């Protein structure tokens, strides 16, 4: 049923009703959304990429971006639509074309993307430039070899003065070349000043980047009080008194207002910047903002609390005023409760500990047992850190020992054990109390803790200890492993201190342990027996057994798990996970010596602040005189101009304010910017249509000329006509409307249309159907038959004795000018006759057509026959698949054309060539540097190599260091112009102009390869 369903979708997509197409696309998108595979619809969908209906088009884009990677060859069919979009006068269409083009993850279009990005980076619309910045990481992830070129683009975009671009380009910078901190110097001040007006997401990226930058360029503001600074005493003498770099101050001042952002990510970014960069005394401002975030969603709380927990260890003071904001509600999720508890514990000090402990008492009665356990741990930590309350805490915990919940008791035991280690002498009562617990408490960790305590301090409880051992010996076999180990431990210690009472018990326990299932326990028993029980064999260690077992042990330090987590940049994923995440950029340590601050000075402007506006003014006047465009830029300059009088930094601030106001009033008063924008677009449109109309004039002119040439050639057409069936020649000379140069407004069909949409087939029928206009193959230059390469279609072994080879004869295919002629040579190497050889079931991809060769009735053993078939490859290098059948067998074969075979040579004069070339500049031009090898420097060799790589005709050429070739693609008749310019020595430059950029790109590759051979 699935297949059937897809069939009806295909039908809907092929219909010419937009509503049906839309319905089909909606259903397909719904399939994709549910994770269903819709890839088999690719050919049907991609045809609609140039659909007029904007919603259909958008959904096709969605589809394309999703599946292009899987169907690379087919995806290429859509490229030309986007290329056309890149030239659209409307900036939004240019931007959206670039966005989709760059989202298609097809490696072959890398050069096209590169060109498009470069061009968009100098687009006059900041929105298009923003899109270019977004495209950079996409290209980089597709092909990291482009890094150097991309860095150039990033450098250029970093210099951009608009807020729209700033965030996106810094994002690209962070992804492609975060190590190139030098690119930031000149833009540092500008970024700081733009920051408040950048959109929220861009702000986060910029702030994080600037944090890293500042760590490499400025000195630590806290160096005077850094106690742990290395060799401080020595350096103190020579160190100058610390003065904060004004640029450092600028960053702190300009980020501070963003603490008031509604966006939690922005607030966090500023908070981490202050934590890592600000002088100690100023960090406090972030606390209020962070506390505010605690009212947000649970996930936001979770992340913020993690960061607060880390910060509160280093800078306890700043959160103290907000202590109560971390109080826990019974409705908080456990993970939030535990984090809040962590913060409360970090904040505890002598003055607030009584309040905190009172809070903790409520928490202990909570229903959430994990939380109760964490609270007991927290009490333990407070008790170790604050000596004053140690006894209170201990008493509180001891009370918990009578709690009904075993988990609570167990956790308390563990914590008490740690606390007792600090002053055991005073607490023999507690130890006695705990000894009694062994009868009831079952949690292994708690039992183990009690046993350890009794063993360690058996001298404080001389009467009870042996009794405990007696009970434990009885239950030994049923205990958990950790408990057993502690029983052995207790036995050993008692044996050493009170052997009279416990000797036999110890022996008994050790014997039990000797046959325990766990080898650790067996080993331990053996080891301890050797140590404590003196025998003749036992060595000197025996004397020291008591020292070994009952040495003074240091009390454990209860530490926060958030201690020292701040070596990760706060707010980062790595900080949250407490491990280095992939792609984490280490936060550099402050430098010992400040790097040269003058690198941030921008040329022309002497001092950073005041002359800014002056220089910009002059800059803009020149730019605006040179072009009538760029209203945005002008706008900005005006604003800068308004602040011209402001002389010092304070006023700079004012200026910002005024600027914002002014923006507003401008918009409000007359919408002047908007209007200007309109004017811009319309003028742009006007000029575009002007140029295109001139372009079409141009076209018709050439057309006329060509027609003349064709007529002239008629007479010698006959001479050139190859023998064989009569030809229906290629109507290359005529440019039907569909093939008019791309910019022509008359061109109703998109390029893609030529590849098989109904619109184009209509056009095609027209040319075919007007034979009176079609003329002989006169202008087709004789194909270069230099070295015809043959390819294998079917190997002798695979073909069971039948071997098939094919070559591209480079003759026009009789019967259909849009087909490439493929000569097929079939040899029968078997000793039997092969009968009824034919092509069957061609499975062409969309638009592709195959004209089979006539059936070969019989092929005698040892015979070879040659036939010609025609394939319309639709100007793509996709393989044509079909079956080759004999009377007994079917062989699946496929023919894949090299790109050079998809065209036919065309005659042209040098002038015509140059004219046509002029129309195919920019995106349609691909340039590549070539180094010619020794043997390939003669005229002959070059022409030979180029014509062998592609079916092109040579264009006569005036200069002797230039070679020109021309051809038209077989299916759509698009011009392909090749220029090879020889430079000094072996160097040469290859230029290919074609509106079929995919073909152009591939052709360049093939020719370069051919020349290198």
């Amino acid at each position, binding site marked *: 049923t699935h297949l059937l369903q897809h069939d009806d979708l295909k039908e809907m997509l092929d219909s010419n009703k937009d509503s049906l197409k839309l319905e089909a696309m909606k259903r397909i998108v719904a399939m994709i959304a549910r994770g269903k595979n819709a890839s088999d619809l690719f050919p049907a969908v991609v045809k609609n990429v140039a659909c007029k209906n904007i919603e259909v088009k958008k959904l096709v884009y969605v589809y394309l971006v999703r599946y292009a990677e899987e169907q690379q060859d087919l995806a290429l069919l859509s490229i030309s639509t986007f290329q056309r979009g890149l030239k659209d006068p409307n900036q939004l269409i240019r931007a959206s074309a670039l966005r989709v083009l760059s989202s298609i993850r097809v490696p072959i279009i890398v050069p096209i993307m590169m060109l498009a990005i470069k061009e968009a980076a100098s687009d006059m619309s900041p929105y298009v430039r923003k899109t270019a910045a977004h495209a950079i990481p996409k290209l980089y992830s597709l092909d990291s070899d482009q890094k150097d070129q991309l860095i150039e683009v990033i450098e250029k975009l970093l210099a951009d003065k608009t807020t729209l671009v700033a965030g996106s380009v810094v994002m690209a910078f962070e992804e492609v070349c975060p190590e190139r901190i030098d690119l930031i110097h000149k833009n540092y001040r500008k970024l700081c000043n733009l920051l408040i007006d950048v959109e929220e997401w861009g702000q986060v990226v910029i702030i994080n980047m600037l944090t890293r930058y500042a760590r490499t360029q400025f000195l630590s503001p806290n160096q005077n009080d850094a106690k742990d600074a290395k060799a401080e005493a020595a350096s103190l003498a020579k160190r100058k008194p610390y003065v904060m770099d004004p640029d450092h101050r600028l960053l702190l001042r300009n980020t501070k207002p963003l603490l008031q952002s509604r966006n939690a*990510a922005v607030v966090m970014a500023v908070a981490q910047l202050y934590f890592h960069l600000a002088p100690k005394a100023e960090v406090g401002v972030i606390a209020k903002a962070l506390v505010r975030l605690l009212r947000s969603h649970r996930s936001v709380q979770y992340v913020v609390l993690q960061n607060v927990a880390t910060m509160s260890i280093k800078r306890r003071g700043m959160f103290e005023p907000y202590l109560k904001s971390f109080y826990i509600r019974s409705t908080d999720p456990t993970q939030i409760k535990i984090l809040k508890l962590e913060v409360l514990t970090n904040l505890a000090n002598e003055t607030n500990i009584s309040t905190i402990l009172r809070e903790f008492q409520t928490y202990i009665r909570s229903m959430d047992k994990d939380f109760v356990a964490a609270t007991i741990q927290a009490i333990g930590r407070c008790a170790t850190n604050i000596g004053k309350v140690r006894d209170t805490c201990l008493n509180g915990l001891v009370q918990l020992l009578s709690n009904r919940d075993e988990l609570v008791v167990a956790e308390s035991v563990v914590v008490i054990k740690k606390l007792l280690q600090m002053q055991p002498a005073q607490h023999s009562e507690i130890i006695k109390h705990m000894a009694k617990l062994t009868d009831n408490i079952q949690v292994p960790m708690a039992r183990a803790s009690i046993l350890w305590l009794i063993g360690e301090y058996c001298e404080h409880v001389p009467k009870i200890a042996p009794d405990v051992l007696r009970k434990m010996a009885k239950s030994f076999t049923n205990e958990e492993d950790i408990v057993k180990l502690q029983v052995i431990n207790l036995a050993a210690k008692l044996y050493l201190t009170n052997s009279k009472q416990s000797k036999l018990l110890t022996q008994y326990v050790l014997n039990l342990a000797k046959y325990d299932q766990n080898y650790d326990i067996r080993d331990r028993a053996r080891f301890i027996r050797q140590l404590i029980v003196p025998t003749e064999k036992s060595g000197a260690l025996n004397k020291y057994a008591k020292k070994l077992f009952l040495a003074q042990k240091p009390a454990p330090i209860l530490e926060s798990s958030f201690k020292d987590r701040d070596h990760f940049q706060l707010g*980062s994923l790595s900080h949250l996970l407490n491990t280095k995440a992939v792609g984490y950029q280490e936060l550099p340590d402050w430098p010992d010596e400040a790097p040269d601050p003058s690198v941030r000075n921008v040329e022309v402007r002497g001092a950073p602040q005041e002359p800014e506006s002056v220089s910009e003014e002059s800059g803009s006047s020149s730019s605006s005189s040179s072009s009538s465009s760029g209203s945005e830029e002008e706008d900005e300059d005006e604003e800068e101009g308004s602040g011209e009088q402001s002389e010092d930094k304070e006023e700079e601030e004012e200026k910002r304010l005024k600027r914002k106001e002014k923006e*507003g009033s401008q918009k409000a008063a007359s*919408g002047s910017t908007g209007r200007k*924008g309109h004017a811009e677009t319309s003028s742009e449109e006007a000029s575009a249509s002007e140029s295109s109309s001139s372009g079409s004039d141009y076209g018709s002119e050439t057309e006329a000329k060509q027609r003349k040439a064709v007529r002239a050639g008629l007479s010698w057409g006959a001479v050139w006509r190859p023998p064989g069936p009569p030809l229906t020649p290629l109507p290359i000379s005529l440019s039907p409307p569909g093939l008019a140069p791309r910019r022509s407004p008359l061109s109703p069909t998109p390029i893609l249309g030529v590849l098989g949409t109904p619109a184009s087939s209509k056009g095609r029928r027209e040319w075919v159907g007007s034979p009176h206009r079609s003329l002989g193959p006169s202008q087709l230059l004789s194909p270069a038959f230099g070295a015809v390469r043959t390819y294998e279609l079917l190997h002798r072994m695979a073909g069971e004795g039948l071997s098939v080879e094919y070559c591209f004869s480079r003759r026009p295919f009789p019967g259909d000018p849009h087909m490439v002629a493929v000569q097929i040579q079939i040899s029968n190497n078997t000793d039997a006759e092969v009968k009824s050889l034919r092509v069957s079931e061609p499975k062409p991809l969309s638009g592709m057509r195959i004209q089979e060769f006539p059936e070969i009735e019989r092929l005698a053993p040892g015979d070879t026959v040659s036939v010609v078939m025609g394939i319309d490859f639709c100007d793509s290098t996709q393989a044509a698949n079909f079956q080759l059948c004999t009377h007994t067998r079917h062989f699946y074969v496929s023919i894949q054309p090299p790109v050079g075979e998809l065209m036919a040579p065309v005659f042209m004069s040098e002038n015509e060539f140059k004219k046509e070339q002029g129309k195919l500049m920019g995106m349609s031009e691909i340039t590549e540097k070539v180094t010619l090898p020794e043997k390939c420097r003669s005229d002959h060799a070059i022409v030979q190599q180029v014509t062998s790589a592609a079916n092109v005709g040579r264009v006569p050429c005036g200069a002797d260091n230039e070679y020109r070739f021309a051809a038209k693609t077989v299916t759509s008749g698009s011009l392909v112009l090749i220029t090879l310019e020889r430079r000094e020595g072996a160097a040469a430059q290859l230029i290919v102009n074609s509106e079929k950029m995919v073909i152009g790109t591939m052709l360049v590759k093939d020719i370069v390869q051919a020349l290198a051979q």
Partner: protein
Amino acid sequence: MCFQQKMIHSLFLINCSGDIFLEKHWKSVVSQSVCDYFFEAQEKAIDVENVPPVISTPHHYLISIYRDKIFFVSVIQTEVPPLFVIEFLHRVADTFQDYFGECSETAIKDNVVIVYELLEEMLDNGFPLATESNILKELIKPPTILRSVVNSITGSSNVGDTLPTGQLSNIPWRRAGVKYTNNEAYFDVVEEIDAIIDKSGSTVFAEIQGVIDSCIKLSGMPDLSLSFMNPRLLDDVSFHPCIRFKRWESERVLSFIPPDGNFRLISYRVSSQNLVAIPVYVKHMISFKENSSSGRFDVTIGPKQNMGKTVEGVVMTVHMPKAVLNMNLTATQGSYTFDPVTKVLTWDVGKITPQKLPNLKGIVNLQSGAPKPEENPSLNIQFKIQQLAISGLKVNRLDMYGEKYKPFKGVKYITKAGKFQVRT
């Protein structure tokens, strides 16, 4: 090829029963199986609220939020500030809410194409692109019943055929060419009291959190300034990006060109030095008898410091201890329900009339044999007071510049309980 792939890679929407009902990829496709790590964590957490927002898996990191019974699980490959992703995901949920009136599985499934179009516009290559509601609405029109009927007849679409200009301007939050016949600007000052009241009735912690939500339907490019009688009350404020920060810093005036439609202008906290008036008190007696399978429950709610206004919409919810089997109570006012599975007691009280205080009283049945619960449950209280901002904040005036017409202006005050908890 393995290069850095920053930001959000893919998004999965998962419902409470663990079905992935929507997926969207901004880069190469990531298999659904990555969600298994999420399900694992979810199982471990038991309660949905306890699923960790960040999960580390061998090849990816999963950052998720839980909103309206839906998990939004995003797949990340490299270091990225977790809040960046979380904030974005919430913005996505907000947008769905804004478009479909609710952010539910059904709404998303019914509008899957619009959802997809929205997601496509909101992220480019995993980096946020257009998240402002005004811009999105120009690009993709929200569905309405009328429009969907018209669309199905005429075959026209939800995608705007005009391209958004807002994205290009310096005020990206406002769409261009706004026109209304009635020009109106409404502001709702909503204050919430967060409080913890201890057993004896004294306040452990109390704080006022406020927001000003606006509904602005003004033509053209209005430039508004809103001033307060007592702006110093506002201790900590966060702003919508439209507000001019410096103006606030220097004059304590909110000056802005508003987005069109509904939006949150500011959120604020009232200085914690101020004493917070607590509008209700709760008298409670909850006890469980030793060695018996029952207990007593007696709660009375009364008004206190309510500035002469009526306290209404009072609801009390209590998570009873696990040992509680059932409750036999009588309410003097309103109605109560007890869910024996989740052990949640809900008492919908309604309005409090000081003459006759609402009371809920009765017997608690405990599991026989189970030990007496140690803990007493906390009472969570909700209430509402109309026409009162409990902090005393008052809007002074609203001025409009830049447009000629006279707008209709309105300010409404309301006080609610936020996280208001009484410990027993």
